[in-house]
């Protein structure tokens, strides 16, 4: 089997398991499913219960009928209806909230990868130097700090203290914009603090990984050989050490994505950023299980796909793993 097919198969299997878990969780929900569906309806009669059971197919055998229907619906993108936002499908609710998260974390990741890898590479290269000592200390502290604590600190400093940036939401509530640039400016002002939080939260982690990766690489024989050949330091770092040190870093970044989601959710909560994280917490407070499961599905599939991409990149960079 080719490398590509194996990675693809394993990603599909993981996604299938996410769907299965979602199904089991829906069945395990406290109170039978029909009670959850009828929640908020006063004085439910037995007849109504039975009608609901019949209407939602709960009288069919769990396997294969109910499970089959659930899988077909999920594959078609039908995730059911939100309990709270009446009349809206889970797909619609999530669709409104997905872009703020993509923007915040897409930009945050890019900044953090660039800055973190650079800091880590310099620290590892000039090990024990001033940049290493200061940078590694800061990285360790940032790495140990939950993102939302960084967020609350920034909020304290720049919110009421200096008043430089708005601290709530994505756009000024009720604001009227003269043109698109005005609107963009307001958006960027709101983005500043959450984006800084995300970037700071990630930089520590990436710098630490890159630093130890560079240190491992520097003791490899080919670096010694390059030194013996009289190559200049900068060239050894760029051409010999960096490319090899980047390999394990790619994997670690991908593996940590699942964990980063926890930080993502809390950062959004701190700044009331209207993304999937605040949606998850709102759904949690309202016990809006379909939305919660939808968020789990969307985030789970995204992380699995990101891992797949990382695996494929790794396969291109390092032919050895393909065998």
């Amino acid at each position, binding site marked *: 089997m080719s490398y590509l097919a194996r990675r693809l198969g*394993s990603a599909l*299997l*993981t996604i299938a*398991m*996410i769907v299965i*878990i979602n199904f089991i*969780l829906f069945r*395990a*929900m*406290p*109170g039978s499913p029909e009670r959850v569906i009828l929640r908020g309806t006063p004085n439910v009669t037995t007849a109504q219960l039975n009608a609901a059971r019949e209407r939602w197919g709960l009288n069919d055998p769990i396997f294969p009928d109910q499970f089959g229907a659930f899988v077909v619906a999920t594959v078609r993108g039908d995730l059911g209806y939100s309990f709270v936002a009446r009349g809206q499908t889970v797909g619609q609710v999530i669709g409104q909230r997905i872009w703020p998260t993509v923007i915040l974390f897409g930009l945050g990741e890019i900044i953090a990868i660039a800055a973190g890898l650079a800091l880590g590479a310099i620290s590892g290269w000039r090990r024990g130097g001033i940049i290493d000592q200061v940078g590694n200390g800061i990285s*360790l*502290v940032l*790495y*140990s*700090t*939950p993102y*939302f*604590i960084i967020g*609350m*600190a920034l*909020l*304290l400093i720049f*919110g*009421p*203290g200096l008043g430089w940036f708005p*601290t709530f939401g994505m756009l000024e509530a009720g604001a009227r914009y003269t043109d698109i640039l005005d609107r963009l400016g307001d958006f960027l002002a709101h983005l500043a603090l959450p984006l800084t939080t995300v970037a700071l939260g990630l930089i520590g982690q990436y710098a630490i990984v890159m630093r130890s990766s560079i*240190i491992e690489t520097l*003791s490899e024989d080919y670096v010694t050989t390059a030194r013996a050949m009289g190559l200049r330091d900068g060239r050894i770092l760029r051409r010999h050490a960096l490319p090899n040190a980047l390999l394990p870093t790619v994997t670690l970044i991908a*593996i940590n*994505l*699942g*964990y980063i*989601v*926890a*930080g993502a*959710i*809390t950062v959004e*909560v*701190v700044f009331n950023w209207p993304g999937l994280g605040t949606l*998850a*917490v709102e759904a*949690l*407070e309202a*016990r809006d*299980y379909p939305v*919660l*499961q939808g*968020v*789990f599905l969307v*985030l*789970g599939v995204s*992380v*699995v796909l990101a*891992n797949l991409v990382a695996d494929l990149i790794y396969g291109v960079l390092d032919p050895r793993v393909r065998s």
Partner: protein
Amino acid sequence: MAGQVALARPGGARRFVGAGSLLRAVLRRPEGLIGVIILTFFALLAIAPELFVGPLQTAVTAKGPRLSPPIEGFPLGTDHLRRDMINLTVHGARVSMVIGLLATVITVLVGAVVGIVSGFAGGRLDGFLMRITDFFLVIPTFVLALILTPILRDLVGSGSREVFGIRMTLVVIVVVIGITSWSSTARIIRSQTLSLKERAFVDRARVIGAGGGHIMRRHILPNVINLIVANAVIVFAGAVLTETFLSFVGLGDPLQPSWGQLLESARAIGAPGLGAWWYFVPPSACIVLVVLAFTLVGSALDDQLNPKRRERR
């Protein structure tokens, strides 16, 4: 020497490096020493918070001013319910550390059993267990925890029941952290088991008729115990963080406030926006210190146990 069990066993199975010598090795490294000192301090707070600050203050018993910055008598200020922040933070140590400890025990137990069985049995069982492990390794387990926690709580009917003085809501948190975070432990233990399985002493044990269970318990387990301890340190840091995250999004217990729960209250009343730094700086500092300490100890342990890193120092 106490704590140092016989090194040469019949069949050559080497047992513990020795808990004592492992600790001494950690203490020899400056970062290990700092980490151990910090953790000892918080362990003392967690064991007997009453000794330092008296019983946990509630909205009823608290008599301080409302949301006051540090003043005489309240060196860390008070919260919006007039409670002394020192009192809350010290009692938070107990809740956070105990949840972290119990969750670590479950995590490491599940991870070690899955890892040893998977690595030793091999074949289809190994394939099956590793599929599940990889699943938990990849997916955002925190979101799964967000869904599992309220469902489990409703299933067990939390009420006001307590287990060993821990409220049911928090027991559920412990279980949820345990079942969502064992995967990396399982991976690490499995790969060590795979290499141990090929060693001569396992073959010899098999030749004299030892069963699989016996070999796993008496020959594999003693040889991975150091790895389990080193991993537990990292797992503990992760468990404290996960508990903090869960509490922060509203899944904590206001009646037994952990550090994360205090931060949630601080956010809920808008403390950062009000400039009430004293409400969230003490619990934040504690969380960062504890996680940092575990990371430092873990790094020192890793240097000790990983010969590749040791010789490069």
